[in-house]
């Protein structure tokens, strides 16, 4: 057993840390990708026409919402931290 191990290896979904989530108002997004550029986690995905967010790893830092020039992203408080709305576990 040697402490030199294959990477990447992800066991924890850091999205469970989140207390607020970014929600896209798709109508306002012009796909400029500023949010994609500035997301420290890299958990915003570029899609055709609009972006999507990997909520398994989004920590809810809010940089995307703050930097969006068109206010297309809004931070919404999580009902259950890190979980889907209405879900009982993270």
């Amino acid at each position, binding site marked *: *057993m*040697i*402490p*030199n191990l*294959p*990477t*990447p290896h992800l066991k924890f979904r850091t999205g469970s840390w989140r207390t607020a989530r970014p929600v896209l108002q798709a109508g306002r997004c012009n796909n400029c990708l500023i949010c994609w550029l500035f997301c420290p986690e890299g958990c915003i995905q570029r899609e055709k026409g609009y972006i999507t967010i990997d909520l398994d790893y989004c920590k809810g830092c809010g940089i995307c919402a703050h930097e969006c020039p068109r206010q297309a992203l809004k931070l919404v408080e999580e009902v259950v931290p890190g979980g889907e709305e209405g879900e009982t576990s993270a």
Partner: protein
Amino acid sequence: MREYINGNEAVAQAVRLARVEVVAAYPITPQSPVVEEIAAQIARGELDAEYIRVESEHAALTACYGAAVTGMRVFTATSSQGLAYMFEMLHYVSGSRVPVVMAVANRGLAAPWTIWADHQDSIACRDTGWIQLYVETAQEALDTCLQAYRIAECPEVLTPVMVCLDGYVLSHTEEIVEIPAQEVVDAFLPPYKPREVVEPERPLVFGVGAGPDIYPAFKQAQQAAMDRARDVICRVDEEFYRIFGRRYGGLVVPYRCQGAEVVLVTLGATMGTVREVVDRLRQEGRRVGALRLRALRPFPAEELRRVLAGTRVVAVLDRNCSFGYEGAVCTEVKAALLGLEKPPAVAGFILGLGGQDIRQADIEDIFRRCLAASSGAVHQVAAAQS
């Protein structure tokens, strides 16, 4: 080919013959001639290696680590303060299971400031997870460096090796050394086949962070590798013998221990002096013998018990001091012998610090005191001596 060379040059010859690919080293007395000679070999085109002229010993070992994880066979050498400066990297290298080989020209540690030999420097690194082999002659220094690569790179071991030679006594004293031919060495020591290397195509993290749940498992694995190394050191020594006709006895080197009443245990070049005294006392009919620990890590406890069972007194000559207790080797020998049904009495002697000459008269004195003392009085004998 036989040449009249010193221990440092013998080490440099081994580095050339081992086809080391990356050397990173920082000069320090009395190690410097090793790295000067390696630099000269590269300059003359005799050794195809990169020499990283680092700015410190800490960087020397780190650069070796960096090169080794890319799959290079690496070498460094140091001494005393330089080894102390490497201390944290020693753990990093052994913990990452990187097979670095390093020569240590043993020298005392300041203060008082000294450049002369004792074993304080490498003994202080006993617990860093490195295999430690102590040699007696320049020839053994050369041969052991070659063996060291086989041991360190052995998949069952993957542990760095320190080859320790007494400063000046070995590093700067010339003797006739048989320098093997390259083809013969090549047959003994094939190119390094790393288990894993830095490669974007198969990314690894080298030296992961580990929490309390898993850290002990890595350390247990290190200990298990050290345990396996005992066997590997002996096997490699035997294989070396079949190819080169020289062997050193693996972990311990007993001398006239058969039926000995008193056996003196020591490390390194002092053994040469001890042998002569043993011979003279044996001629007088005194039942004395000696034993050199070639490996200090892994510690050959079983071998010691086998050789020393039946001995009345074991004298341990330490060229180091674990301040607040006694010579470090003495403590270890005592612990090893505890398992015996009738363990010999053990008397510790600290001599030869900071290059102090260890004369035949000193050794003879140790033997005579131990021979004269009843087993119960041995402790007082040691106290009087030191």
